[in-house]
């Protein structure tokens, strides 16, 4: 440690190149990889940066707030001898910060001597607690078909112009710890909410702020805002700063934390920009080869650990460029997260809210969060049956578009009716409607009543006897 203290405060000169947010400095032997430096321009103004690459002869520094006004001569780099750390404290709930964790709500800097490295450390798989407690969001498509579990990372895949912000706000507002159908929800304290905005518009940030205020949650929310006109490089820090606070609240203070990150696509573009300037070998669509590891270093900071009763549940939001789910950002995200909720444009055009495309959506942790003792014993089979039936509806629809609805067989006609009712009654609900798990499950059985019994091969005979309402 003594060595680090010794180096702190030293100043180095000798900037040799400035390009975009990148600054290259020579004769910088004392800088450490990934450390933070303070860059002072000729007017004495200070900005912060981070070391991306270092050798005895030079160092590559990424400046968070941009390089405007920096000159080759007259710029000094002050060594801090430490990686990027932010203060963390419970009092940060109810506050608003910029993308680097500095307060921008006019309030004081959080008073604490607890500083945490924004990169965090990987959770030891042996120390994790496997997530099994479902969160009731009051939204049928999520609770019934793609349950969210406490400690899960479940992203919203959306597109420009789709109501992902409303959906995220509704989830945040309605989320409670789930209870078996018919029982009232366990008495649990409310979720703490950590919200990080990367490159979103002012309106979006305001929308969330107002929505939190309306539901009376504002005192439980910490907001980290890097808006569309803020420096892109800062965006690389924003989600990490937010997650660092979330980890503190969850694992040291035992709170249940919901983390909303929006919009991950902007984050990835900032990463691509830096990678590009550094001349790295690109992989797909110009994104760097380490995009997967980089995203994982954030998404994996979710879960529960043995030593704390708290949890981190992540809901990252990303917009798929051109609604393309195979684009590297949604694609790599889907490989890391435990499922995805996909919003669909066709449903939205039909006036259905929330426009969640059932078939590509998935919750991987659902299987252990539902069923007897958690929701209801018929839930797993009911879910599989609804999925299978709705998948068949798509086939019938495409057939009907060729041969006409009148030409369809009797059973296929029933499927068409089921599909319509499913979208109208199950998927569709209002922005303020909060359905409990029992209502959601019962609507599912009501709809299956539109299909003949012989078609229901995914549910057991006993379940048909108990719940089936058709003929």
């Amino acid at each position, binding site marked *: 440690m003594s060595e680090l203290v010794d180096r702190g405060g030293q100043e180095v000169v000798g900037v040799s190149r400035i390009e975009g947010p990148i600054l290259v400095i020579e004769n910088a032997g004392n800088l450490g990889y990934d450390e933070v430096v303070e860059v002072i321009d000729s007017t004495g103004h200070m900005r912060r940066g981070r070391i991306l690459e270092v050798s005895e002869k030079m160092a590559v520094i990424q400046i968070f707030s941009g390089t405007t006004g920096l000159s080759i001569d007259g710029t000094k780099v002050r060594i801090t001898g430490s990686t990027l750390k932010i203060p963390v404290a419970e009092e940060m709930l109810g506050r608003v910060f910029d993308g680097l964790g500095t307060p921008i709500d006019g309030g004081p800097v959080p008073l604490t001597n607890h500083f945490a490295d924004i990169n965090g450390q990987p959770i030891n798989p042996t120390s994790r607690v496997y997530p099994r407690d479902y969160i009731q969001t009051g939204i049928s498509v999520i609770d019934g078909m793609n349950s969210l579990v406490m400690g899960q990372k479940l992203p919203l895949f959306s597109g420009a112009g789709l109501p992902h912000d409303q959906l995220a706000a509704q989830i945040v507002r309605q989320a409670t710890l789930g209870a078996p159908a018919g029982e009232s929800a366990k008495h649990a304290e409310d979720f703490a909410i950590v919200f990080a905005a990367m490159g979103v518009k002012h309106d979006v940030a305001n929308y969330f702020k107002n929505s939190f205020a309306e539901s009376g949650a504002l005192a439980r929310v910490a907001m980290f805002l890097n808006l569309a006109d803020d420096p892109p490089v800062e965006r690389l820090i924003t989600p990490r700063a937010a997650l660092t606070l979330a980890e503190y609240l969850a694992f040291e203070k035992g709170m249940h934390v919901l983390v909303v990150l929006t919009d991950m696509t902007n984050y990835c573009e900032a990463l691509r920009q830096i990678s590009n300037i550094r001349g790295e070998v690109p992989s797909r669509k110009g994104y760097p080869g380490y995009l997967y590891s980089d995203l994982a270093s954030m998404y994996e900071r979710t879960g529960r*650990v043995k030593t704390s009763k708290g949890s981190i549940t992540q809901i990252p939001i990303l917009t798929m460029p051109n609604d393309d789910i195979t684009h590297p950002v949604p694609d790599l995200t889907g490989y890391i997260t435990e499922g995805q909720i996909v919003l669909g444009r066709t449903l939205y055009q039909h006036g259905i809210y929330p426009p969640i495309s059932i078939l590509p959506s998935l919750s991987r942790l659902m299987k252990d969060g539902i069923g007897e003792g958690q929701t209801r014993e018929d839930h797993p089979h009911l879910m599989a049956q609804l999925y299978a039936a709705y998948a068949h509806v798509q086939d019938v629809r495409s057939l009907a578009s060729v041969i006409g609805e009148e030409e369809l067989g009797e059973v296929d006609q029933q499927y068409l009716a089921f599909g319509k009712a499913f979208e109208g009654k199950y998927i569709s609900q209002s922005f303020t409607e909060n359905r409990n798990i029992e209502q959601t499950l019962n609507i599912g059985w009501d709809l299956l009543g539109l299909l003949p019994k012989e078609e229901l091969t995914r549910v057991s005979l006993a379940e048909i006897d108990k719940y089936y309402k058709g003929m």
Partner: protein
Amino acid sequence: MSERIGTVKWINGPVIRAEGSRQVGMMELVEVGEEHLIGEVIGLNGDIITIQVYEETSGMHPGAPVFGTGLPLSVELGPGLLRSIFDGIQRPLPIIEMRTGSFISRGVHLTPLYRKDRWEFTPVMKEGTVVTGGEVIGTVPETPSIEHRVMIPPDISGTVTWVAPAKSYTIVEPIARVKTADGEKELTMLQRWPIRRLRPYKTRLDQSIPLITGQRVLDTFFPLGKGGAAAIPGGFGAGKTVTQHSIAKYADAQVVIYIGCGERGNEMTEVLQEFPELIDPRSGHPLMERTVLIANTSNMPVAAREASVYTGITIAEYYRDMGYHVALMADSTSRWAEALREVSGRLEEMPAEEGYPAYLAARLAEFYERAGYVRTLSGEEGSVSIIGAVSPPGGDFSEPVTQHTKRFIRCFWALDKSLASARHFPSINWLDSYSEYLDDVAPWWHKATDQNWIGMRNKAMELLSEESRLSQIVKLVGPDALPDEQRLVLETSRLLREGFLQQNAMDTIDAYSTVQKQIGMLALMLYFHDRAHDIIKMGATISVIHKLPVVDTLIRMKTQIPNDKLSMIDEIHEAINAQMTQLEADYK
């Protein structure tokens, strides 16, 4: 053991360059910085040493020391491997937890195997025996299901001068001495082996015994031979991990090595919490007792991801050498390939396809060729089967990792997103998948079940591919336009899809099917088809067939017939016979 060999000059993520000794060897294990972070030499140029570091390098600065060990990166082999969970470079995660809490700090130095445990050693070799590498000195009951056979290291041969008497020993206490050409050597139960060097064996044998996984679509339709290699490619959400987990649970391998390579932390935790409670249907002991887990989750250092598959395969070969059948699952090999790409990018190597280094294919080949059914040095038979998951970007199988992998495996289990969307699991597409082991394992099936397995399997495949052709027509004109004979093909294929190919990993009865149940079910469906076919020829319509009560029975029998009550298959056979005979009477 470690002396200073150089000084750090350049740092870029997990790759560093140091200047120093010219005595350092390629692939030598080194320690970097004051914290002694573990690294491996991957390039030498004059006195510049390029090192990949297996831990986070944040805060390291030029001028930091580099220490050499003189040894290649190796794994520790000995009793205590089973039931363990290691990181990519074989550090025991539970001990790291005791040291540093719920989060993994860097610079933790731990021996992979616990030195203080005592193991009951029983010698099986007499003093004075002339031995060569691989021969068994003695045995240790490592877990109730696996007897650990302590072997002479492959590179040692000579005369045994002393063997320890039956008693409990730690793995570092001597248990034998061998007089070799270069002097007398003392052996312990603990041995080391470099992870990048394959362990020797006598000869390779044919892969004529299938690895039975209890998964019907795999065993019956696309079997993997013991000692073979298979790939499971699929986009996200297609069910790679669930399939890998099912195989790890039910495969008839004696030892299972599960490598979570760049995957989710919660999934490793699931295995860790589930396996000690699940009972192996064959041995009757908890599954964990035959399992070694290696976890490099996606947020753990990327260079260790590259090492994790080698760590796993070396442990697999070690148990193979004892004469066991080992199954190794690597989930996912794409993350390993990406780790190669990342390190290669930082070295500024010339990329080939999609940024991957040109040696990607060579590395994949090296890895998959470590699978095999062999006669071991001690004359036993053992095997390592590799099942590698592949995660192609966008689910597009034309990308480099999938394409190169296809050249080195003989069994391709293609996962299909549209099947997964309809919740058809395991979502293995029967038209895109293939197995080149069919003819190799056919004799085994005939002997085990006394039925014409290959004939039935091919007949069922024929029906399914016919269905795929017919469904193209149905999409254009609707099913009613087809003649009833063809609609029967659609009906039987539906039975095969829903009643046979679909298998519910969460259902206690359905999760695992014995080969007898598999072939019994298949026979019933084909029998149904043949009888129905005859009746349709007599003039019956498909709707009459569709309404037979036995159709529902056939679809539900997978969850109704436990593996130990196969007499129910005969009852269903009788029911088909009775219902069909009655129909026949109507149309005569």
